[in-house]
């Protein structure tokens, strides 16, 4: 998740193509044949010269985004709301559990509990703001599950809190809405599909390993979903909204797959 966006290709592809095109024009008399060869040059030649140029091409990016959206639909279709992620004994918890964010550990936001209020908006009946104590007063569950990062690594941790489906029902959310979105104290934002929001292992986590969720793991609360990759699990949540308008996400808007399910 800390990966920086996009490296510039080392080759000046347009200049190379212009040069090759000039050479072609001198040697090939027929205009139609010349055009054909020039087209072949851009497609094949570019791909051979530098893979970076190919992946930076706008139409290629659009095609890849379209496939990614198709993959969102496929994953929604594969998703089985009753299928549970594996759980582990506490002895298997990864210690220390890795800190991970799009910034360093020194920049972790410090949220003041006294003044904190969770905002709930969108397609919900009850838009009242929540204090942490009120969330703690609801029935709590915990889970020892595997957190899988989009980078490939994984770690086992223990989270406790309110089943998110119970919270959504409590605020009278329209459970037929498409998306639940999250805005966070570190300016992170993301959104999930409603079936995953209602999954029995999706919890509004208030604790880590039996203690109040520490700042580095997302105080005051994190949405914990063992059925989704790490970047889909927002920390430092300040606002939750239910909507039918696609809200995107911090990494998703840069190209990570939106569904991001496992």
């Amino acid at each position, binding site marked *: 998740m800390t990966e920086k966006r*996009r*490296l510039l290709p080392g080759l000046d592809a347009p200049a190379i193509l212009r040069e090759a095109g000039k050479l072609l024009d001198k040697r090939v008399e027929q205009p139609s044949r010349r055009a054909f060869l020039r087209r072949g040059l851009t497609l094949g030649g570019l791909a051979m010269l530098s893979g970076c140029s190919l992946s930076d091409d706008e139409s290629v990016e659009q095609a*890849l985004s379209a496939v*990614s959206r198709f993959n969102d639909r496929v994953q929604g279709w594969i998703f*089985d709301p009753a299928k549970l992620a*594996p759980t582990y004994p506490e002895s298997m918890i990864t210690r220390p559990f890795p800190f991970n964010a799009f910034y360093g550990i020194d920049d972790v936001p410090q949220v003041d509990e006294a003044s904190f209020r969770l905002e709930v908006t969108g397609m919900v009946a009850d838009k009242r703001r929540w204090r942490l104590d009120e969330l703690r007063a609801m029935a709590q569950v915990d889970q020892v599950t595997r957190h899988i990062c989009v980078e490939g690594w994984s770690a086992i941790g223990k989270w406790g809190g309110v089943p998110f489906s119970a919270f959504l029902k409590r605020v009278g959310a329209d459970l037929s809405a498409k998306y639940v979105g999250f805005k966070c104290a570190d300016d992170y934002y993301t959104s999930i599909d409603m079936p995953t929001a209602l999954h029995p292992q999706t919890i509004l986590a208030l604790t880590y390993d039996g203690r109040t969720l520490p700042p580095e793991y997302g105080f005051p609360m994190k949405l914990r979903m*063992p059925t989704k990759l790490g970047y889909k699990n927002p920390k430092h949540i300040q606002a939750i909204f239910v909507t039918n308008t696609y809200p995107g996400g911090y990494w998703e808007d*840069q190209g*990570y797959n939106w569904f991001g399910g496992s």
Partner: protein
Amino acid sequence: MLARPALNNTPLAPPVSALSPAASPSTAAESDAKKRTGQPAPPAISPVIHPRWLRVTHWLNALAVVVMVMSGWRIYNAAPFFDFTFPNGITLGGWLGGALQWHFAGMWLLFANGLLYLALNVATGRLWRKFLPVSPGGVARDLLAALRGRLSHADPRRYNHVQRLAYLFVMADIAVLILSGLVLWKSVQFDLLRDLMGGYEAARRVHFFAMALLAGFVAVHLAMVALVPRSLLTMIRGK
């Protein structure tokens, strides 16, 4: 993909009739069948060695493998579990997110094309005709002959036992890559597959080693093509 005659028929191999115990369901496309039935070879015997569908699926598979391996290296680099990373210059995608997009687009080509290849191989009986039987003795004999430079290339229609083993191996290897990839993509949804691989983290290793074996196959495959350049032409022109 899998079927390129790099080294061809060996004179030591058993006669054609012994190669097809599996009742060769539909052999009309290949002149071998006509020889077997003892009919006089008609003048219209097709000179085609690789049917069009095979050449198309071969090259689509080659493209899919290049995309999957190069983007896969970039993904591996994001969280390497060995002491090395792949030079970014030989990877695809530019960054992790881009590599993932390539990987999860390429997977459809690899999967759909692989399925089509297998289906046509089974439907035409080519799988049994070309790749079976394969025996340890046959492999050892053909390997030895190849190393001594005595493997004949007289009949590009027939695969020697080393080729048969290599092509069957790479089919199985790609199947393992797809199955372990499914576990990495959807470890919760494909729980049986996940347990079969020994869990999510084990599946990462399975996926990596299957990739390494595939890369090894490609290296040998290309070396063989370089030794017998005509095989490249037959995979392009069909004859």
